[in-house]
């Protein structure tokens, strides 16, 4: 073996001096990436704020048309997946290759559960015509649901701007869901790299960065859940 200080650091890219420098740069880069992700979602939250303040009745009735139990279930699932992600990082940092792989798989599985629940929610809305904007055309059970939701929220009529609510609902959850899918894909990639033994106590940066991304996806959902599902 090489006796040089970092001679066995095959993971160290040529333009860095030390593993610490490489790690710190990667981490800063990741936080900057997360900052831009935040601003990206921030735009959606601004649109949400504007229309919620304009169309409060549509927002109340709209949120009663969503199943808050499904939302709560998905929140718990994502929080749990954040926990498994952080445990994957911990396992990688302590050099436990097997546990790293298993925790990554668990995270992917939980993300899968989230998407399945999401699928059922979407499927129902498509079925009863709770579609965004110009496609909003409730029929069948949907009409009964609207009557029920209006009664529950004390609104005497059908808010015209339910279509705007569902427009934003689909865009916000859709963009978030896309991020979940991307996260699943990246974690699958990390699982494969871990399986090949690319990570060690000295180098687990990619797992850590993936987990950071995953936590951000979780944070977005932490806000989406009460803002969409829980409006009184």
């Amino acid at each position, binding site marked *: 073996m090489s006796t040089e200080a970092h001679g066995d650091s095959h993971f160290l890219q040529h333009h860095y001096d030390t593993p*610490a420098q490489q790690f710190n740069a990667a981490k800063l880069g990741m936080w*900057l990436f997360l900052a831009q992700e935040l601003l990206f979602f921030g735009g959606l939250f601004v649109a949400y704020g504007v229309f919620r303040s*304009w169309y409060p009745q549509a927002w109340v009735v709209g949120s009663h048309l969503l199943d808050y139990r499904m939302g709560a279930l998905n929140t718990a699932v994502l*929080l749990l997946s954040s926990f498994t992600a952080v445990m994957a990082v911990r396992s990688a940092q302590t050099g436990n290759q097997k546990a790293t792989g298993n925790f990554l798989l668990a995270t992917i599985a939980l993300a899968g559960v989230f998407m399945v629940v999401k699928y059922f929610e979407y499927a129902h809305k498509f079925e009863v015509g709770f579609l965004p904007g110009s496609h909003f055309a409730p029929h069948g059970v*949907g009409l009964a649901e609207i009557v029920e939701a209006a009664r529950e929220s004390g609104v005497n009529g059908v808010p015209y*701007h339910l279509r705007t609510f569902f427009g934003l609902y689909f865009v916000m959850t859709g963009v978030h869901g896309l991020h979940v899918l991307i996260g699943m894909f990246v974690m699958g990639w990390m699982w494969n790299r871990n399986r090949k033994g690319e990570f060690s106590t000295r180098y687990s940066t990619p797992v850590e960065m993936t987990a*950071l991304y995953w936590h951000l996806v979780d944070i977005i959902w932490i806000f989406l859940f009460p*803002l969409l599902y*829980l409006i009184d």
Partner: protein
Amino acid sequence: MTTEPLASHSPSSPDDGEVHHHVASARRHVIVLLALLGFTALTVGAYTINLGEWNLVAAVVISTLKAALVVWFFMELKDDVAFNRLVFLGAVIFIGLFMAYTMNDTRHRNRVDAYNGARVDPRSGEFAGGTAAGIVAQGGELGPLPVIAAESDGEAAHE
């Protein structure tokens, strides 16, 4: 007593160019997870009791706390360098700025001149949607409730 230290390295690690992780205990992660789940239960609980205007405030405050837990412990901003914290904080501040300034417009339109920008065509008197004056001109934003046949489980109303 915990046998595992909360962080295996002090911040003043030797400057040997190696990466020194603050490996947190599994116990801490479990505690954070339980807190997050607890807060979620609290949010749902707050929803089922009617707090009126305060429901939104409660939802946002609890969500912010949850997000803070994730950021501080799971994402380990707790042990991170100051600049990474600044990056995160900066992004949040700029979202706040974006929202505050935009809503300073959308919530205060047509205060000085009620017709400014509200009409699509001054001759026909048609109002633009999306402005407060426009909504009022259209007779409010509510349409009639649909008439549902008695005992319908949805089949009857199907087109």
